[in-house]
């Protein structure tokens, strides 16, 4: 009879679809994946150790480099951790500015993530280009307020670095005018398209209880049908004053993750509109003037977490009373969400493997740290 053999393929570390330097050691039987071993560490930059020789403030720009798609959200998590440790009050206006930036980050992350996901499915950049266009608009805003597009370094202990420039609000309002059209268009391109349905429905199913067991977070967890969002589960900042819904999926496949991301963009827009409405009434400046940036937290440890677009990002800091953290640990959502990859890909085709990886939405900067 015909004899077939299993073939081992190295996908990565230099491969178009691994989202960075990531390697998947795939054993395939024909086109079916029978085993997948994720191998990472190619982008290891010693993030946590570097942080332990830096002062607390000096670490702020380094957090930008974790998940370089959402620098603002990383900043927020770190600033919250240090503020919690030292006990710094954040003015109301600063909180609103923070939420505004973080929700813009969420939109830009999802626009990019969906575009890259479709690229992994084989589209020729169109959806990505549309997503990138919206992302560029938001990055322009970030640039005008923080001075940089990606590595914003905008948050400070007790507030944000700088108040909004005068042309920020009109541009933001323009952006919000375009946003529904963009999201609808994205949905039209993604939701009903038969080819995309074929590629995403029933692919990479992560059942609800396994998702919890793997401790994945973010859209991957919500796609699996668990309504868990730190903004609601443990409201931080001013999220308890804002109206928004949590979209969840029902099956837990790639399609559900796409749907959840699309809906989250809509909800983020809702949040931003509320922030714009409430911002003029907010008290305090953009930063607590009493907050010292050169902090020396008391001896102790702290864990602070936020819901970044990719999931729960937590910073665990241990202070020995000096101006540098004694221990600095990042709970990176991309890394944790990547753990079920090997199991999720088993039994699917090679092409699906790429799509599943794309639907997790990883950034290697955060995985390898």
């Amino acid at each position, binding site marked *: *009879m*015909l*004899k*077939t053999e299993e073939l081992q393929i190295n996908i990565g570390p230099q491969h178009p679809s691994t989202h960075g330097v990531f390697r998947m050691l795939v054993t395939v*039987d024909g086109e*079916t*994946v*029978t085993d997948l071993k994720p191998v990472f560490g190619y982008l290891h930059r010693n993030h946590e150790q570097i942080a332990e020789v830096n002062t607390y403030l000096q670490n702020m720009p380094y957090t930008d480099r974790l998940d370089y798609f959402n620098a603002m959200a990383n900043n927020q998590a770190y600033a919250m951790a240090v503020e919690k440790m030292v006990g710094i009050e954040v003015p109301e206006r600063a909180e609103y500015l923070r939420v505004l930036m973080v929700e813009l980050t969420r939109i830009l992350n999802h626009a990019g993530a969906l575009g890259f996901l479709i690229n992994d499915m084989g589209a020729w950049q169109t959806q990505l280009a549309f997503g990138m266009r919206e992302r560029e608009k938001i990055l322009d805003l970030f640039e005008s307020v923080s001075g940089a597009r990606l590595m914003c370094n905008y948050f400070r202990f007790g507030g944000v670095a700088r108040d909004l420039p005068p042309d920020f609000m009109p541009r933001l309002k323009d952006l919000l005018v375009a946003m529904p059209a963009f999201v609808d268009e994205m949905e039209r391109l993604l939701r009903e398209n038969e080819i995309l349905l074929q590629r995403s429905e029933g692919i990479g*199913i*992560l*059942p609800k*209880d*396994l998702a919890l067991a793997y401790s994945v977070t973010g859209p991957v967890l919500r796609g699996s049908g668990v309504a868990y969002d730190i903004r609601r589960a443990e409201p931080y900042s001013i999220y308890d004053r804002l109206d928004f819904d949590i979209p969840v999926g029902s099956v*837990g496949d790639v399609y559900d993750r796409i749907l959840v991301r699309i809906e989250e963009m809509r909800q983020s827009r809702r949040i931003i509109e509320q922030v714009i409405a409430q911002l003029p009434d907010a008290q305090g400046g953009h930063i607590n003037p009493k907050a010292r940036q050169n902090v020396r937290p008391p001896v102790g440890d702290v864990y602070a977490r936020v819901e970044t677009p990719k999931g729960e990002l937590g910073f665990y800091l241990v202070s020995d009373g000096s101006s540098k953290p004694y221990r600095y640990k990042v709970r990176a959502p991309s890394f944790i969400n990547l753990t*079920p990859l090997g*199991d*999720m890909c*088993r*039994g*699917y085709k090679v092409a699906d493997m790429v799509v599943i990886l794309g639907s997790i939405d990883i950034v290697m900067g955060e995985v390898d740290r």
Partner: protein
Amino acid sequence: MDLLIQIIFGLLVALIIGAAMMVVTVRNVIHAALWLIASFFAVAALYLVLEAEFIAIVQVLVYVGAISILILFAIMLTRSSEGERLLTQHWWAAALISLGLFGAVLLPTLVGHTWNIPLPSGAPGTPETLSGVEEIGRGFVNEFVIHFEVAGILLTVALIGAIVIAFEERSRRRRVLTLSEEHILRQRQQATAERVSAVADAVD
């Protein structure tokens, strides 16, 4: 015109014979298959020279386009593509036998054939439409209906055989369970085990 045809014929024949020789002499099986394809192709060209367009095209379509691919697939499914050169001490006997067989088939034709090919009646360059699609179609359903049907049955049998082989192989191969399938399976097994233990408890 004749001279040109003769030159082309000579080139083609050289290619056919050369390629055929290479098929049996190269050690690498894939190379042999590729030479075989070259030979097929040259044969198709020869048909074109004979103004048998339909046969030429079918030669390309069937032999070059399909059969050769099948051969390549088959070779790739075999274990090693590098064959040992098997040259026994009695190779001359094998050569004699094959030559003899070849001669036995060919000689009566060569001897008995009357080699007076009639010249084309019409003007050169305007061949008769020997290859009209309608004629072929009518030929298939009238004159050669038996051949056609037999060939069809043969192909069907081959097709079914291939499917059977592939199916057997497939059923023997363990299907790789996806994560969710495995999960549901495990849940069911657990439920069954619980039920069994509950029954056992009840019995106790």
